[in-house]
Structure formats: C-alpha cells, structure tokens
C-alpha cells in the first residue's frame, strides 16, 4: 500500500490539473464571496448590489459565511470533482492503465491509494479555503472573530469536507466510464438534480443536496436537515469508495 500511496502522491504533486484547480478554489471562492459581501456592506446602489442582497442575509461574518456556504456547495463539488475525475479517468485517457496490471501492487490497492490521496488533497483545499476566508475577513474588518463567527466558519469547513466526500463518488463513474467525459457529464447531472431536489423540497433526503441545504439554512426552519439525512453523504462516499476499489480489482481491458 505504501508503494501505491507514494506513486499517487507523486503524480498529484506534479499534476497541473490539481495545482490549478486547488489554487483557483483556495483563492477565488473566498475572494469572490468577500468581494460580494463588501458590495453589500458598502451600501452600494447598483444592479450588482441589488442582486447580491438577494443572496446575502445578515451582516459581517454571518453574511460572509452564508455566501461561502453557497459557493462551496457548488464550486468545491465541481473543483474537487474535476481532479477526482482526472485522477481516475486519466489512466484510461492517457492509456497508462495497461501498465497497472501484472504488478505485485494490486489494482485495488492502487484505487484505494488514489482515494486516500484525493481525500487528503480535498481536505487540505477545504481547510485552506476557510483559512484564506478568515484571513480576508480579518483584514477586511468584518468584525471580531468571536465564537459565533468561528462556528459559522466551522460549518463552512464541514460543508467543504462533506462536499469533497460527495465529489469522491465521481471516481467510480470515471472508472466505469473509462475516461473523463462520462464522469463530467454525470457531475453536471448531479449538480442539476441537487438544485431540482431543493426546488421540490426533497433536498434533505438527497445526499448531493443535503450538506448545502444544511449549511445554507443554518439548520433552522423548514429547510432543516437531520443528522441521519446529513450522514447519507459520508455513507454514499463510503459505498462509492468500496465499489470503486472492487471495480479496479476486477476489471479487464477491453
């Protein structure tokens, strides 16, 4: 297992896809959200300010974390999803998969190593998004980082981790689809169905919508998500990981 992990970490470290996606998420998500909060806090009167006010509730850290929740739920899913799809699909698209047969390191182990590397990388990215956001909030004078603000930012981090877990299920689709395109199509479909589930008030039971709904609603009111409903996301990720490892262990080149 150590061998597969070291190889997969090396591939990730040298990957332009992972660096680009990671840096874009870590910089752009906090920067855009902070920019939008600044527009509202600045009492702007323009069209943008009017539109942003619809998205924002509260002021200061509450407004900032609320916007972060909305962006993290979708942008992180896409960003992490793209790297997960690259990590698994590239072996088929680059035709390197044949070299992963007939080795003392089993393909199941290689798949498990890929999942571990993706989990570590997405945890780092989710954490960095929150760290950069806190830095921006402090520098931009959103108020003191008190316990309530920390709780809000903790919820953003939890949402980031849950969203990353959900994105890891795309590994199975990139594997079964033997390349990037089927999984990218599935990712778009999952985003769309999550929006529809929320629209039809079934989001709490839909794992791809529940974490976003939980964070955005502040877990209050009609949109409240229960713990079992929220737990469906990690359960789904675990099932996806198990199926991915099993598929890699047994598939054949055709």
């Amino acid at each position, binding site marked *: 297992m150590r*061998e*597969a992990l*070291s*190889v997969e970490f*090396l*591939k990730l470290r*040298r*990957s*332009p896809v992972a660096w680009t996606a990671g840096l874009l998420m870590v910089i752009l998500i906090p920067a855009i959200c902070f920019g939008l909060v600044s527009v509202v806090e600045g009492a702007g009167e323009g069209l943008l300010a009017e539109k942003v006010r619809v998205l924002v509730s509260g002021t200061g850290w509450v407004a900032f974390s609320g916007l972060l929740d909305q962006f993290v739920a979708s942008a992180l899913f896409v960003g992490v999803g793209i790297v997960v799809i690259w990590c698994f699909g590239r072996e088929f698209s*680059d*035709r*390197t998969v*044949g*070299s*992963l*047969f*007939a*080795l*003392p*390191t*089993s393909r199941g182990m*290689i798949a498990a190593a890929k999942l571990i590397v993706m989990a570590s990388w997405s945890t780092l990215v989710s954490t960095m998004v929150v760290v950069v956001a806190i830095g921006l909030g402090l520098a931009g004078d959103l108020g003191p980082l008190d316990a309530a603000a920390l709780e809000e930012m903790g919820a953003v981090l939890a949402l980031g981790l849950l969203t990353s877990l959900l994105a890891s299920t795309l590994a199975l689709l990139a594997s079964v689809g033997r390349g990037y395109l089927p999984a990218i199509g599935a990712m778009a479909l999952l985003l769309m169905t999550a929006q529809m589930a929320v629209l039809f008030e079934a989001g709490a039971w839909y794992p791809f919508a529940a974490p976003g709904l939980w964070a955005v609603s502040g877990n209050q009111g009609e949109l409240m998500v229960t713990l079992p409903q929220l737990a469906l996301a990690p359960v789904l990720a675990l099932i996806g990981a198990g199926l991915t490892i099993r598929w890699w262990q047994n598939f*054949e*080149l*055709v």
Partner: protein
Amino acid sequence: MMSIVAESITRSYGGDLAVDHLNLDVGSGEIHAIVGLNGAGKTTLMRMLMGMVKPDSGRALLDGRDVAAASPAAWAHVGHMIETPFGYPELTVVENVRAAARLRGVKAGDISSSITAVIERFELGRWAERRARTLSMGNRQRLGLACSLVHRPRIVVLDEPSNSLDPSGVVLVRDLMRCEADAGAAILVSSHHLDELARVAHRISVLHRGRIIGAIDPDGVDLERNFLELVHGAEVGLRDGGLHA
C-alpha cells in the same frame, strides 16, 4: 524454473474469435517470438497471459499457477510492455522509473541502484530529468522498456518492443533480450519484423486468426516467404473447410 503457458486458451469479442483454443509455452532461458498479421490475436493472447483480459475458456499459467490466482510475489518476477509504454507525461524520466520500481516491488534500499542501472542500460541519462511528455516517441518507448525491466524480471512479455526505436535502439533491445534469456528469463515477444526476431528468438510461432498455424525456423532462409506461405495455406484451408462445410 520460470515459465508462462497458455492452455487451450480462447477469447472472443462479440462474435469475433480473437484467440481460438491456443496452446503456447515459454520456458526459462528461452525467447519465444510470435508473429502474425494485424488482428491475428497477438495482443489479446499477451493480455490474457498478463491477466488483463479473462479467457472465455482455457487457462493462462504463470509458473504453473493460473494467472487469475497469481500472488503478488509471483507478479514481482514479471515485466511486460503491451501496446502503450509505461510513462506518466507529468513525471520526469527518473520519477517514472522510480514509480515503476516501487509498483513492481523493488526493495527501498535497491531502488536507486536499479534506477541508475536501467537508465544507463537504455541510454536515457541525457533525458533523466526531462518530463516524459517532452520525449520523442523513440525515447518514450525506451522509457517504457526501462520501466518494464527495472526490477530484472524472470518472465518478460513484450509486444512490439522495437516500435518507434532507431537502429541503435533496436540493437539495444535485441542485446537486452539475449542477455536476460542467458540469465534465465523466459521471454515472449511479438513483432512484425521477422529478420529482427530471427536474430534473437529460439522459436518463432506464427499466429493467424487466433490460432498457432505453424512455426518458422529462426535459422532458415527467406523467412517472410515462409511466413506468408503459412498464412496463405491457413486461409486456403479455412476457405476449403468452409466450402466443404
């Protein structure tokens, strides 16, 4: 004694029979070459021997054990390059060879010396720190071979190893196969270049429509004529058989 054996192995894709009840063996210290036209079944046969494709019937054996049940220890003695050479474009030549050595179970203490030796052997030193994506096709092929052989395997399966290689690369591969076989490796190799195979192979089997239809003496003359006569004879036999049926 390391060996690889195909026992009445069969595989079809849809209605197309790619390999048809084929028997083949390669023993320790032997270079067994297979030749055939495009689509004869060479790659499918090699894929089955390496566990990449499951046979519909028959067995592929690695040292007497079915490849489907081969242990990690058994695979640690195997090196192969079938179709696409190993090589991640974002990694340098050294990083690729190190990755291959790790995945192939080379002991941590032996990795550096194995990398140095194989890079020297394939004359890749000049490009050692270059990313694989910037290499020429020929050097990518050399890199793939280096990755396949970094662990000095005792069973070697190579599909068209001299593809894209310049004449010095072709000689290098030929010398390498000879050297490994002399050291006891069992080598199965495919190629379209009969003259090249004749210089190294102990046996040359002709594969056509998924079956071994005969053998060519590597020391014989006019190998291409012998090959084409065998293929033509098989086609005539099939046609007549079809007519009589």
